[in-house]
């Protein structure tokens, strides 16, 4: 009864608040269901961001190695169809930056492979469209997901302008090797969406994201709000671009060209 009333008041209040304040209510009620509690030595930031040095990580093999690490850590299944799940993958220049290619681009830049993952956007359309707050933006800028709340409507996949999300069309555990599971990270059930989570569970333990750790310094991860951080330093010293600037999402993944 009490719960019913609370839900009703919440519904009435939200409906009254309307669309204008919606993004804030999303934040307020969406935060806090991270699967891992932050530890004493957790890494904190105002705005996490990643800079990928494409001069150093630029072949399919380089990226496959990082993908293997990420997918192993997060128990991402390897589905052999186009209903596959990908948290991190590689693509040629025109697919990574479809609006920013020109016919006379430097051959070296054109022939590189680029590492794609969720951009953890500042204005994430996936959060805007999600009808259950299963996708939410944390105060530190990470766009995270609650797999137990997701109803599998896939609206967020239509909303993401980068194709960063995957849906478990079938039972994901069928494609996982039970002997190689990472016991520290949950597996998913069928019918929910998933994507790169910027390794929130590792940040909570004071670790770097798995792909950053495996990159041997070619990917830099840190706090954009801190002007002395590593990311700010590499952003100052190098020319970087982001994917699809016209979408207005303000991605937090930068590429050094």
């Amino acid at each position: 009864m009490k719960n019913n009333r609370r839900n009703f008041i919440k519904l009435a209040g939200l409906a009254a608040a309307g669309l204008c304040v919606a993004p804030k209510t999303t934040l307020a009620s969406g935060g806090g269901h991270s699967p891992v509690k932050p530890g004493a030595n957790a890494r904190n930031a105002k705005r996490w961001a990643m800079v990928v040095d494409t001069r150093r990580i630029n072949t399919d093999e380089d990226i496959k190695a990082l993908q293997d690490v990420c997918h192993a850590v997060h128990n991402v299944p390897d589905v052999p169809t186009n209903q596959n799940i990908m948290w991190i993958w590689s693509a040629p220049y025109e697919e990574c930056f479809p609006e920013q290619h020109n016919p006379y681009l430097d051959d070296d830049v054109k022939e590189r492979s680029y590492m794609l993952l969720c951009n953890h956007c500042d204005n994430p359309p996936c959060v805007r469209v999600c009808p259950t707050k299963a996708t939410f933006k944390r105060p530190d800028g990470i766009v995270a997901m609650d797999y137990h709340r997701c109803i599998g409507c896939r609206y967020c996949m239509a909303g993401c302008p980068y194709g960063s999300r995957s849906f478990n069309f079938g039972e994901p555990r069928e494609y996982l090797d039970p002997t190689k599971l990472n016991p520290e990270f949950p597996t998913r059930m069928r019918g929910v969406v998933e994507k790169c989570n910027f390794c929130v569970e590792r940040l909570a333990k004071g670790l770097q994201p798995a792909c950053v750790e495996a990159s041997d310094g070619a990917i830099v991860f840190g706090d954009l709000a801190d002007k002395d951080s590593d990311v700010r330093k590499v952003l100052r010293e190098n020319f970087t671009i982001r994917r699809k600037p016209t979408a207005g999402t303000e991605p937090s993944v930068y590429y050094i060209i």
Partner: protein
Amino acid sequence: MLERALKGSPRYWAWIGFLLVIIGAGALVWINQLTVGLKITGMNRDVSWGFYIAQFTYLVGLAASGVMIVLPYYFHKYKPNKHMVIFGEFMAIAACIMCLLFIIVDIGQPQRMMNMIFHPTPNSILFWDMIVLNGYLFLNLMCGWVCLEHDRMHLPHPKWVKPFIIISIVWAFSIHTVTAFLYQGLPGRHYWLTAILAARFLASAFCSGPAILLLVLKITEKVTTFKMPRRAVATLTKIIAYAMVVNMFFFLLEVFTSFYSNLPGHMHPIVYLFSGAHGHHELVPWMWTFIAFAAISLALLIPPKLRNNQKILPWALVILVIATWIDKGLGLLIGGFNPTPFDTITPYWPTGKELMVSAMIYASGALVVTILFKIATSVKEELGDSQALPCGCSTEDDDCDCGSVAETEEAPAAEAAEATA
């Protein structure tokens, strides 16, 4: 009143049985989908919505269509529509039910559906779509049932339903606008990212919806003693013709904007749909069929002579329904996802299982329509409203002078045969 649906001819029961068989077969496939997941569909990582959501989108138009009968009657006191209002409302009920079913079969975790209510999220258009659809279903159930119940008891319609009917008229526009907003405003999907999408949705709803309604009513005329007043049919056909003209005009506006501006993002989906891209031509024949059928339906509906010919009309309507279905039930969705965010093409085509589940839902909708229309026509028969006269006119036609001049062309048998052809 429901007991009226339990008395019927063997033909009626055969039809009900046929629908139940389809529902049963589709339900088996749906159970299979529930146990193994949406992997039985043709959807994939890049095309994450498919046939189900496309049918949902198309049927929202059917739900909104009844308003084209209700509105002239209540806002303009257009009398010939009086006894047709109930059919518009009942059709809306069936369409809303089908829409909701298509959403349910499409989501990956249907048992968690209530999360949309437990965690209301006003910034998601899906939340508003749920509200407007359920609201519209409720409004039509209430107005339709109350009015029919009072008709049956030979009582005037109660005053208190009138405001609800007025609300439902306005609401009909909202369901289609909100459904368009589901698509409109997603930054990565250029085919949908257009301010005219909601207007296009309304235009296509107001031609395709009444066209389906009119076809169903023509069949109803054949199997019952119900007869639509000629003037009401003529008005509705005119509305369909105008709405189709507006629909195609809006489509041309899209084409102009895309190609005159020369913006790649806006051109790519149209190029893919109508001439193929990156070696993928799956939709090209379909889209040109859409253009050809749209042109034919307009050619048959615009000249008053052809439009009012009851032998040609059913054909024109069928052609129009096919054209709008290809545009909205196929091209809109696939064109939105293709080209993908990577400017590549990932083809999508529904699987047999997907079609079976969809058939289950369409059959359920047909079942609801059959039962509701059966009840409504039996009440009308009892009251002598809108009944067929020997000359083929309806009792509501106040200018029927067939008693003196026999119109061979309007003979009921010939016309009825055409209606089902």
